[in-house]
């Protein structure tokens, strides 16, 4: 059984793994912005270089990252085809009724698919290099300013932490109850939708009963540990912003500048041998 509290975490001893989760969260947001800023193929290419080099630095097999794309393959094909067929381009290649395939349409749909692929690669890199616990800690820290508008940041963080702690426990319990009911002859995978939903009752009811029992004991355990004893709660874990995070931030900033520059034909690069650069400037 895979330990779900690790999520997709891929253990490795790398530069990225050692980074501050807050920095990584900020970087992912920056990366998303970067992917949306990119306009032409040259700037897309820069974003790709960015995510590939980040993967290399993280020591995650590139195939592992590419595999995560498999999960959204349906969305990719759907977006690709839709844009291909319905984009309102001028250089029409083929047309039938309201469907038309144009050069602009082809280019646009390739870009859309590329953007989605890049987004997925970048965000999975976060989950591959950071445990959900660390992500929670990072989010709590980043949300701190919200305390001043009376958002119970700490309670939210405790809830998230408990949820993460209990996901593997509950999922193991689901497995166990399902096996126990299968052993009593229950079948979960045949019949119509209604029959299947009904077949799940012998799993759901014990699960709820157990969840309530756990919640009761957990509530006592929280009280026994003086939860909410003082508003001046301290914090043991301190996240440290190190040189790695600075390097990461500077690197990403550099890539954003590069993307913007390429978007705007900053070096007049596209002007030179027009035939070569055409591809990138569209």
């Amino acid at each position, binding site marked *: 059984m895979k*330990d779900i*509290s*690790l999520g997709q975490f891929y253990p490795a001893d790398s530069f990225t793994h050692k980074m501050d989760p807050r920095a990584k969260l900020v970087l992912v947001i920056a990366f998303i912005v970067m992917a949306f800023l990119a306009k032409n193929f040259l700037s897309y290419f820069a974003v790709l270089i960015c995510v590939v080099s980040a993967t290399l630095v993280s020591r995650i097999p590139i195939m592992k990252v590419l595999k995560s794309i498999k999960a959204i393959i349906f969305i990719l094909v759907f977006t690709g085809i839709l844009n291909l067929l319905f984009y309102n381009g001028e250089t029409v290649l083929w047309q039938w009724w309201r469907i038309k395939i144009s050069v602009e349409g082809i280019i646009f749909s390739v870009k859309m698919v590329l953007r989605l692929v890049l987004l997925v690669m970048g965000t999975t890199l976060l989950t591959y290099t950071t*445990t*959900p*616990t660390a992500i929670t800690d990072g989010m709590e820290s980043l949300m701190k300013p919200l305390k001043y508008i009376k958002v119970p940041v700490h309670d939210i963080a*405790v809830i998230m*932490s*408990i949820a*993460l*702690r209990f996901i*593997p*426990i509950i999922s193991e319990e689901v497995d166990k109850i399902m096996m126990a009911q299968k052993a009593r002859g229950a079948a979960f995978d045949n019949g119509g939708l209604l029959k299947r939903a009904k077949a799940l009752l012998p799993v759901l009811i014990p699960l709820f009963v157990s969840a309530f029992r*756990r919640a009761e*004991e*957990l509530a*006592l*355990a*929280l*009280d*026994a*540990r*003086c*939860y*909410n*004893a*003082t508003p*001046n*709660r*301290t*914090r*043991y*874990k*301190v996240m440290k912003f190190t040189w790695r995070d600075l390097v990461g931030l500077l690197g990403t900033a550099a890539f954003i500048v590069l993307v913007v520059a390429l978007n705007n034909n900053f070096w007049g690069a596209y002007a030179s041998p027009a035939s070569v650069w055409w591809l990138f400037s569209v």
Partner: protein
Amino acid sequence: MSMQGKDPENFTIGQNDANGETDCVTDVGTPLIKADGVTYSYRNGEQVSRGVTDVSLSINRGEFVVILGRNGSGKSTLAKLLNGFLVPDEGIVTVRGIDTADDDKIFEVRSVVGMVFQNPDNQMVASVIESDVAFGPENLGVPREEIEERITDALETVGMEKYRKGSPNKLSGGQKQRIAIAAILAMRPEVVILDESTAMLDPKGRREIMDTVLKLKREKGMAVVLITHYMDEAIAADRIHIMNDGGIIASGSPAEVFGNEDAVRRAGLELPVAAKISLDLKKAGLDIGFALTDEELAEEICALK
């Protein structure tokens, strides 16, 4: 502790010093916990069911007390009365002189009386062991550097220091329960109540917990209250109370209580094998003394020859 700052007169000097050793020489006489004529009933609409009836007992510093009883005997209700989770209907429970019914001081009561529960999985709030152990001290507002020290100390006491950065998910039941004990120790309580904390464990896990309990008593001078239905866990106790049907039906040293066959039978408990054999041999006409452990029994038998 920030609470210490608020209310200094209720914390004796030296009780929470850096290495967790308790200064218990100063006031041996006063019990840490005292329950006097305590009655508690559960109310569920119209239905009223008795939890405990007219129970009196005291827990002294550094004492290992075992409360024995079968399921439904009221032993867990009693445990929950000792740290203010439940407030008596009649009678009074005091912890270091503080009435547990006093809502304003409830956190003080709970930081003195730590409690560990039955299912170790339901007591952990974080997916990293050190964060889980840190949770209690954080809630009490202990400064960061001291939390660090307390985590190390607590995990060393239960022998789990090398798992510090790990996840609790892959641990055995006994190991998880030791983490749960460490999480309570990090709050530097003076009494730890183990409310059926061995019930779900395998024999190895139970042994680990018993070793930890004895260590707490011997090395840290802490008081431990163990609630259980295993009589063999009570062999090393200073004092045993047997509960049945909400009341205490026998109290005393292990030899006294285990020799009280009538109470043991009435409470639906089972004597350790050695005790049972020594009693049966005596009944069969042998002139043999009472034995609690396998070793004692072997010696008694050899003395016969």
